[in-house]
């Protein structure tokens, strides 16, 4: 499967690992929508299970990972395809995948408030789980410390 994606998009894709039932690829932010559309239409990954962001202050980057699964294809039922992309930590902007996967709507909104990644084209980059009067940096960034620890 990784070969199939690699064949279609060539060098712009980096295969991070291939484990049993798990494949992780990394793409440039500008290519995410195109790759996601390919994964949905050609490969059969029809929904997103989760979207997670991870902060890497040493590299000054934030990684956003989409875990994609399939309901329609039985042979892919056990597979989870991880599509990742990285953005600069100081000016975290990524294109939204909401037009490809409707299921990422709330996950991306959560990633916005927890890690401060602005999803361009997402209808609502605003407060979701945190209190309305939250006035601190996004809490899942590594420089946010729980008070007293």
């Amino acid at each position, binding site marked *: 499967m990784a070969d199939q994606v690699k064949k279609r998009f060539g060098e712009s894709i980096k295969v991070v690992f291939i484990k049993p039932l798990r494949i992780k690829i990394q793409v440039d932010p500008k290519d995410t929508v195109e790759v996601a559309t390919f994964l949905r239409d050609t490969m059969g990954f029809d929904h997103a299970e989760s979207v997670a962001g991870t902060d890497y202050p040493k590299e000054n980057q934030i990684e956003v990972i989409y875990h994609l699964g399939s309901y329609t294809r039985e042979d892919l039922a056990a597979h989870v395809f991880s599509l990742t992309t990285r953005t600069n930590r100081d000016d975290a902007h990524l294109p939204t995948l909401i037009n490809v996967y409707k299921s990422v709507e709330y996950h991306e909104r959560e990633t916005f408030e927890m890690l401060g990644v602005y999803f361009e084209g997402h209808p609502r980059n605003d*407060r979701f*789980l945190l209190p309305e009067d939250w006035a601190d940096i996004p*809490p899942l960034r590594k420089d946010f410390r729980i008070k007293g620890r």
Partner: protein
Amino acid sequence: MTSVEDKFEESKKLGLQIVKESEEDRLMTLSVGPQHPGSGHFRFTIKVDGDYIVYCDPDPGYVHRGEEKMCEYRNVIQNIPHLERPVIHDSSNITYSYSLAVEELVGIEVPRRGQFIRAIASELNRQVYTLYWLAIYGIFLGHSTMFMWPMGDRELFIDLLEALTGARVTHAYNIPGGVRNDMPDGFKDRCMRQVRYFEKRLKEYEDIFYNNPLFRQRTEGVAVLSKEDAIKLGVTGSVVRASGIPYDIRKAEPYDIYNEIDFKVQYMKTGDCFARSYVPFLDMKESCHIIEQLLDKMPQSGEVRAKLQPNPKGPPGEAYRRVESGRGALGYYIVSDGTPKPYRVKISVGSFRNMLALPYLLVGQKLADMPAVYWSLNYWPVEADR
């Protein structure tokens, strides 16, 4: 499903439109929750035009505790007790996938008897959760008997879990490496006896609740979620199975000893509130069947827990593991940087995913159907907030 506009036209024909003012003035905004018994600890705003809901905006977060951040401050074993707080009724399942992910990262082999016991604990917990949910669903549709019976029968499984783990809820039982302690003497017979009793009770549930004409009228054909929309919205668990997709992690990606168990994935094709409330019931039936098999096939002796080093840690890497919980797929994405504490933990829960279907299903429904639709989504606010 008829569109919202059609319903407006229909209501106009019936002369139901009383206020003839501008569009905005006609709508009334209602706030449901976060301390409303009809929603749990969850707030959503709806706008109604007469009797019809025309807008819905979920606003979770009332019970957000920052579980994912807390995980980064504790080692993998210390994380167990606080991770089960989001779903105390289903605590064996929420720590199950965490244990699987940690085992993959650290490289732990779970003894065979341990695998069986934790599958039994998770199936018993599934019953506890589903019975609790069924009781709430019953009372919000005005069926008091359906509140009393599941609450009473839930004690059977709570007592079993108490004998097994030492705690009535929040067991902290499924841990990386297996289970915390072995079964007590005589547990197998007791469990078998109670599960067989419960199977008989399920037939009575069906007669008094699911075959009740009042319940059927309130749920059949209400808020239909089509197969295509279920895929698009990425819903999970009983919601997706009610829409005709037989997807269950226990079958799709069997973990531990589930590939040795013979069971069917329960699903329905109608996608209405009735299907969404009936699929968990079918799951309970199937779960009884699974528990009986697990008890039969379990090795009679052996270790239940792998020996771990004091501060378990593995090489840097990441793992994403899922189990089927009472509310659908429950996945943990854990990134490790080689230290005993996880670098990042993301919990992907069924409730959070199913919440996306709420505005989709509620718009166009009557206000009186709101509890039937909301609770049919098998939504647990604390789990969604984490």
